[in-house]
């Protein structure tokens, strides 16, 4: 791969589904794009999901073609394992400072054979599996990762050198260091996505107990390439026969600073619950909810299907979750449709339908404003939803606020269109016309 050039038409920050969409839409219009991703692989959250609602398509199966397209597009330069340190407005364009972290190997020479990972003697919790599975200090991020290259997590390296001895292409470079790169671009698209609210945000829900799970952990457990190979409890490997979902566990709650509805929790919980009914035939799955918000195309029908296939939905406010013997869980709930009667149930597993929070903040990096909740402020939300408070900087996907995959893709496309208009208006050119023809 050629090194990063010093000038591009647009910088896209974030290689998730929204960032890839924005980069592809700009690339297809003839613009030269630098797509920067913080982690060692593009694909974002979507490539780690099991299935998507309401179609129940395999998430990685529909995400990986988009990843490959982004990586192989002639006008997209993919730069993984790199953070944007600073973006400054210069004229009508921007000067960008990048921090390219070392993988400690020659990316060109690495063939992704995995020999180094198999030789590495230490195992640590794998971020891709929400910590439930293991990876090694040197590892290929996951089976669908792009680029399919190893990366050394030097914080967990025991410096044994075994990886170097087994590498068939001698690609390891332990003397590599992070480097600072400066690039000029004409427009910027922020597509930095989201994180799930930390599990301990509401201690009364027992987020630190081993059988109280985050929705991402459940996605990974349900996935065919998940950490257990099937749905099991993290505490003891038991096949769960009773599972509760607590809706709005980290949304619509001023006490934890998340007053907004995260928009996707009702649907991902219904989807996971329905799939649990498919994976474990006699499982009892109950959703405790405040309101079911099935607002999208085909979502109401999906909700009805889940209920028809045996998912129980109960209007109730969960007060607390505590651990009983054998890692079982006691859930105390106020049943809103029964005059507020307080009931207690025992479950094998509890999933907290955690809300979405921003994965990244502009503070100190780009001078755009954020809303009080930390998502990127969009001052013209009705007519120009991708505009930020800085001309030439646009936002797409969940970086601007919680939304589902189709909405994130639509909004990223809009951000790309707005960026294209901006580039045309100011006649920004990343190459001289002659050079552009030569390509």
């Amino acid at each position: 791969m050629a090194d990063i050039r010093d000038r591009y038409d647009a910088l896209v920050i974030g290689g998730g589904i929204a960032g890839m969409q924005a980069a592809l839409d700009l690339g297809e219009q003839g613009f030269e794009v630098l797509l920067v991703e913080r982690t060692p692989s593009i694909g974002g959250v979507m490539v780690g999901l099991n299935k998507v609602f309401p179609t129940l398509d395999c998430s990685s199966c529909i995400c990986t073609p988009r990843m490959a397209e982004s990586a192989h597009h002639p006008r997209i330069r993919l730069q993984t394992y790199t953070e944007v340190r600073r973006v400054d407005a210069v004229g009508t364009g921007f000067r960008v400072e990048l921090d390219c972290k070392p993988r400690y190997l020659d990316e060109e020479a690495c063939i992704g054979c995995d020999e180094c990972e198999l030789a590495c003697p230490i195992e640590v919790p794998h971020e891709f599996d929400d910590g439930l599975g293991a990876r090694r200090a040197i590892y290929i991020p996951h089976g669908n990762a792009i680029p399919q290259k190893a990366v050394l997590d030097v914080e967990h390296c025991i410096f044994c050198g075994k990886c170097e001895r087994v590498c068939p292409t001698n690609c390891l470079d332990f003397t590599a260091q992070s480097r600072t790169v400066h690039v000029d671009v004409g427009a910027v698209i922020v597509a930095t996505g989201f994180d799930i609210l930390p599990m301990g945000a509401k201690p009364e829900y027992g987020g630190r107990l081993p059988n109280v799970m985050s929705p991402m952990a459940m996605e990974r457990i349900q996935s065919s390439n998940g950490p257990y190979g099937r749905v099991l409890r993290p505490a003891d490997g038991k096949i769960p026969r009773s599972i509760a979902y607590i809706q709005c566990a980290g949304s619509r709650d001023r006490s934890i600073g998340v007053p907004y509805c995260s928009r996707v929790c009702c649907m991902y919980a219904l989807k996971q619950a329905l799939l649990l009914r498919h994976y474990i035939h006699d499982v009892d799955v109950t959703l405790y909810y405040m309101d079911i918000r099935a607002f999208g195309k085909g979502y109401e029908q999906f909700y009805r299907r889940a209920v028809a296939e045996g998912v129980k939905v109960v209007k109730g406010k969960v007060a607390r979750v505590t651990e009983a013997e054998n890692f079982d869980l006691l859930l105390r709930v106020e049943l809103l449709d029964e005059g507020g009667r307080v009931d207690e149930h025992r479950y094998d597993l509890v999933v907290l339908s955690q809300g979405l929070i921003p994965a990244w903040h502009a503070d100190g990096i780009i001078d755009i404003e954020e809303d009080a909740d930390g998502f990127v402020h969009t001052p013209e939300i009705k007519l120009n939803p991708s505009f930020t408070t800085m001309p030439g900087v646009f936002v797409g996907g969940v970086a601007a606020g919680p939304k589902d995959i189709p909405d994130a893709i639509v909004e990223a496309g809009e951000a790309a269109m707005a960026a294209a208009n901006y580039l045309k208006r100011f006649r920004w050119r990343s190459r001289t016309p002659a050079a552009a023809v030569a390509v």
Partner: protein
Amino acid sequence: MPVQTTITAASAAPASAKPKRPIEILRERHGGMSKELKDYFNEQQKIYKALRAALASGPRTVPQLARECSLPSPVVMWHLMALRRYGEVLDGPEQNGYLLYTLKGA
């Protein structure tokens, strides 16, 4: 006429000093292995040894392994899944709501 016109770093160094291996440079740059990581790694090796020894006498569930190895069952589960991930352990049939795990090739 002088025999040697320039003195390079290599020629100036004593003959006994070997060039550092790249892995040693990496270790030095990161201040070596921290005590926490050393303890973590040693503990991990002990847990794997105990799990392999218990599984050598036949298939076991996670609670059975936890009892035999005197380890908390969440710790057993994580390490057993790591062994499974890297091809040392296979999951087998169900026994009273738990899966039985076997050492590959045992």
